């Protein structure tokens, strides 16, 4: 029986695809995809239909399914596009095959249902697996990217490095800050490290504790930590919390911290003589004044 149903479905694939396209196009407007252009939606859906029929004909290479699910992810479309699409396909196809039957008894009915289910199930399984697998992959890649961003250490000049912190600090990130600080101080042979907390939204006792510990560890390996970028409201809350930062050199701005770092490393910034003056004196000297 299954093969005869399959024959009906394949011989009438154009009609079925038309019916299917019509139904999922109406889904588009009420659903997630209302911002997607019609052309794009129609094209992707035609490809979706191809993928389904290739699989039903049994020529289904899993590559085609994989490529399709990847495309949906790259388009940023939700998983429900795939599951809804296959749900509708199941319904449309079942209806169509039943309509080609002369007598409709419950047995034929359940046979058709079973057959169609049988075709659709492996497609659902494969597509959903590919989609979620890909998705997990993306999430874990982004995690790595975030981790790399989360506690960067910048060697600005010999002996001086800066760690600009932006965003929330949780325990995992606090650990990274400590690790990167210690590794970086040794690698760049830093005398002074400036930790810039301008971009940290809240400094609570946990964040303060980690910063104090990091500074202490840096001190133990022979360098000096300066905390910079303390916004006025953060300074107030730190005082209210009763956190003792007396052993932790602090500066309100990165600029002031950098000047302090230069002093510690026995350097200073000297303005070169302004150019105009040079030209003036040059002209004067030419005139023989």
């Amino acid at each position, binding site marked *: 029986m299954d093969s005869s149903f399959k024959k009906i479905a394949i011989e009438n694939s154009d009609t079925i695809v038309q019916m299917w396209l019509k139904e999922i196009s109406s889904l588009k407007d009420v659903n997630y995809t209302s911002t997607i252009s019609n052309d794009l939606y129609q094209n992707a859906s035609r490809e979706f239909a191809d993928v389904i029929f290739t699989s039903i004909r049994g020529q289904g290479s899993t590559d085609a399914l994989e490529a399709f699910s990847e495309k949906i992810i790259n388009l940023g479309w939700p998983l429900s596009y795939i599951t809804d699409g296959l749900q509708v396909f199941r319904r449309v196809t079942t209806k169509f095959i039943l309509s080609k039957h002369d007598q409709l008894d419950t047995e034929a009915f359940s046979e058709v249902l079973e057959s169609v289910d049988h075709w659709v199930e492996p497609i659902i399984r494969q597509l959903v697996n590919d989609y979620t697998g890909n998705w997990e992959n993306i999430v874990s890649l982004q995690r790595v990217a975030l981790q790399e961003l989360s506690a960067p250490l910048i060697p600005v000049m010999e002996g001086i490095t800066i760690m600009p912190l932006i965003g929330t600090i949780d325990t995992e990130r606090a650990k990274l800050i400590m690790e990167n600080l210690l590794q970086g101080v040794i690698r760049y042979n830093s005398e002074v490290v400036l930790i810039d907390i301008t971009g940290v939204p809240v400094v609570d*006792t946990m964040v*303060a504790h980690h910063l104090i510990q990091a500074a202490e560890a840096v001190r133990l390996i022979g360098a000096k930590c300066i905390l910079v970028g303390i916004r006025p409201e953060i300074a107030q809350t730190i005082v*209210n*919390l009763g956190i003792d930062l007396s052993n932790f050199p602090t500066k309100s701005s990165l600029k002031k911290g950098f000047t302090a770092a230069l002093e510690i490393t026995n350097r200073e910034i000297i303005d070169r003589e302004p150019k105009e003056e040079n030209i003036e004196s040059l002209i004067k000297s030419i005139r023989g004044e």
Partner: protein
Amino acid sequence: MKPQSGVIIRKEWDIVGARQVAREMARELKFGVVDQARIATAVSELARNIYLYANEGQILFNAIQSVNKTGLCVKAVDTGPGINDISEVMQDGYSTSGGLGAGLPGVKRLMDEFDIKTEIGIGTTITATKWVR
């Protein structure tokens, strides 16, 4: 703004969610920048204590807008182990987790009103309010 709001604390990142709600409500109630930071920090402390010591709980926010007073009431509710000696945990530097031990006394100083109700084996409820000046 919804006058009431609640955030469940289970994972570490829920602390950030609670803090965001706190800041949002404080801003809309027209707290100054410093008080916004104070409230967000206090909520961070209370939420982290739930996460660390009670595993699970909730931070409830209540905007108080009456004729002569505007404020934000923050309630941290958990069904954790409870606190044995309140005066002990309110001391600066007391911590059972190797922390700074500045959280609870800090919250008391950051906010205008502060109250702990706790029962061993039942849980802890900490209520703290800040008034708009």
